[in-house]
């Protein structure tokens, strides 16, 4: 097994082993849209990272302190991340400012992040320094800014003397954040040991071997990209072909061309990407593409649909894509990454159940073909170090095929939400982590049916509706607190459309349109979410609960009945 040497160690020690044993082996093939591709060996990776580790040291950043890394997908991002680890500093990768995101909103989220995480350092490009200093405001954090343009690889060093080599397996090695003001409050803190326990169990579930090649376009500020599409290959010695999400979204065919030319075997995609690839790639961009090496394309990080799998398989079968390659996983940053894996040993199980019983009785009753039946995709069985329980609202375990909240226990759980012991305590019940997701177990496999929290998932990204409601509520003409945001599944896109309903007294069509435009503009620029529908409703349209709160699910139902 590739991962046998991972246990009882630290990330720095593993990198050191690769450096000494295989300095010339390519760790990452970086693909660029406008330049030629770039191969980074383990030797280059370490030399580049040591440059950063020394820069952290010179600026007085101490082991155990946090460094926020804001960079585009590039060698510098890789070096800064591993450089922090070699220095014993805790890295957290944040999204770069995209061209459409409003700088004010971006700064506000950075400020929120700085306040809670209290990073000692931020790493970014020269041109981006003003953003950091403005976000810092009166905060003392981050104390230092590392300018990547100035940092050079280092050729002479003693790896064993690096501060990160003295880390203990239970020390925190990195933080993962989700997006938005709310997501930034929760930095998932993970230890070296948790990461190794995940990688050992997950590599086993994937049957990872020396023939594998992982191809990824996923961002590194998201668990799927950071763990499956970055740490897993680099720490297991599996070649990684990495492209930027910015390039992929404009040219989805590049993923398939990369699978073909590097003989890729594994890739992870959120559900919408199946639809996106199937619908938006031209035939001429697939000329000569051969997908027969692809043994698993793993659907993960948003609700999974059988129709998306079908669409993908049909579109790419003429190019050698095999139906058996369709795979699924249920994963979350709090468990480092994977909780379950399906579709590796056997095809992904499809459970055909009665839709009505699923909704009204919360039970998955097997059904024969017919209009009342729906096909549920299995997320597979738990990986070896993770246990699952499905609980009713009182915390009691429910029988097989009954829907409840999924809770997990594993040897790779988060250490805690960084500097938020209150949130950490709330997340566990009797030693079991409460995921907030709903699902059922059948024959040892997990099926996800929905979620307890009002989370919207668009393109694999978690969106907290309260963030969007706050942005829309600031628009003149909208009644304060009379706004609701929710997601509605769009079958063609394979992901959710974001809908915002806002109450206003304004009735003139032109003014109503102006308010709707303003909401669209604020939300899009303030949250990095593409808002699909904005609807202005009259005063009193939105329904409140007995406690006076606006219930998202009730208003979602009302919207679907009246307007959809």
């Amino acid at each position, binding site marked *: 097994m590739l991962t046998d040497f991972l246990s009882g160690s630290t990330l720095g020690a593993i990198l050191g082993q690769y450096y000494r044993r295989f300095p010339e082996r390519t760790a990452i093939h970086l693909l660029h*849209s*406008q330049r030629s591709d770039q191969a980074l060996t383990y030797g280059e990776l370490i030399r580049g990272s040591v440059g950063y580790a020394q820069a952290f040291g010179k600026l007085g950043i101490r082991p155990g302190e946090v460094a926020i890394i804001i960079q585009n997908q590039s060698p510098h991002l890789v070096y800064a991340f591993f450089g922090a680890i070699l220095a014993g500093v805790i890295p957290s990768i944040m999204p770069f400012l*995209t*061209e*459409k*995101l409003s700088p004010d909103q971006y700064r506000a989220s950075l400020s929120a992040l700085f306040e809670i995480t209290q990073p000692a350092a931020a790493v970014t490009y020269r041109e981006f320094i003003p953003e950091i200093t403005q976000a810092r405001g009166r905060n003392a954090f981050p104390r230092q800014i590392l300018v990547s343009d100035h940092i050079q690889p280092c050729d002479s060093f003693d790896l064993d003397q690096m501060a990160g080599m003295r880390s203990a397996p239970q020390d925190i090695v990195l933080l993962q954040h989700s997006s938005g003001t709310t997501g930034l409050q929760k930095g998932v803190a993970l230890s070296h040991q948790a990461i190794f326990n995940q990688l050992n169990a997950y590599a086993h579930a994937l049957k990872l071997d020396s023939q594998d090649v992982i191809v990824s376009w996923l961002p590194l500020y998201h668990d799927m990209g950071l763990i499956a599409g970055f740490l897993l290959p680099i720490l297991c010695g599996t070649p990684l072909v990495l492209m930027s999400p*910015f*390039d992929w*979204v*404009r*040219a*989805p065919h590049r993923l398939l061309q990369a699978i073909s030319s590097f003989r890729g075997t594994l890739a992870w995609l959120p559900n919408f990407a199946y639809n*996106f690839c199937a619908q*938006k790639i*031209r035939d001429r961009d697939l000329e000569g593409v051969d997908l027969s090496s692809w043994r698993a394309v793993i659907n993960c990080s948003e609700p999974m649909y059988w129709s998306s799998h079908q669409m993908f398989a049909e579109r790419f079968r003429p190019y050698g894509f095999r139906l058996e390659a369709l795979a699924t996983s249920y994963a979350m940053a709090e468990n480092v990454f994977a909780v379950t894996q399906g579709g590796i040993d056997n095809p992904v199980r499809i459970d055909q159940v009665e839709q009505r019983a699923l909704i009204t009785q919360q039970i998955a009753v097997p059904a024969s073909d017919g209009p009342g039946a729906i096909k549920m995709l299995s997320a597979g069985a738990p990986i070896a170090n993770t246990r699952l329980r499905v609980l009713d609202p009182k915390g009691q375990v429910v029988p097989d095929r009954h829907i409840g909240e999924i809770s997990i226990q594993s040897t790779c759980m988060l250490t805690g939400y960084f500097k938020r012991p209150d949130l950490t305590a709330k997340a566990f019940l009797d030693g079991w982590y409460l995921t907030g997701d709903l699902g059922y177990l059948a024959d040892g496999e997990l099926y996800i049916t929905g979620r307890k929290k009002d989370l919207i998932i668009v*393109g694999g990204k978690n969106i907290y509706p309260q963030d969007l409601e706050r942005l829309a509520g600031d628009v003149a003409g909208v009644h304060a607190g009379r706004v609701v945001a929710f997601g509605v599944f769009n079958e063609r896109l394979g992901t959710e459309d974001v809908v915002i309903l806002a109450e206003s007294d304004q009735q003139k069509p032109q003014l109503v*349109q102006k308010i709707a435009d303003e909401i*669209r*503009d604020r939300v*899009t*620029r303030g949250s990095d979410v*593409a808002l*699909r*529908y904005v609807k202005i409703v009259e005063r009193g349209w939105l329904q409140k609960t007995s406690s006076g709160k606006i219930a998202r699910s009730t208003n979602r139902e009302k919207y679907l009945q009246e307007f959809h």
Partner: protein
Amino acid sequence: MEQDIPDVLMKYIASSILKQPGRGLQPDEALISSGLIDSFSLVDLALFVEETFGVRIDDTELNADTFDSLAQLADLIQGRQG
């Protein structure tokens, strides 16, 4: 036909991307840098332009530096129609 390019683009963007069929757009209104057209819709726009006007826009050109408004996109299309 040439006069119609901005109009055809506007109708497509309003109905298919923004889902607001009646909506108008100014010729110089920022489309990409404003976030009005999100990155997931850029490929759709490129496919539409190719099918409708027979003009190819490369994926590396799908950014605000190459075109950011109806007028700029129409110019680019006209320039390539030769």
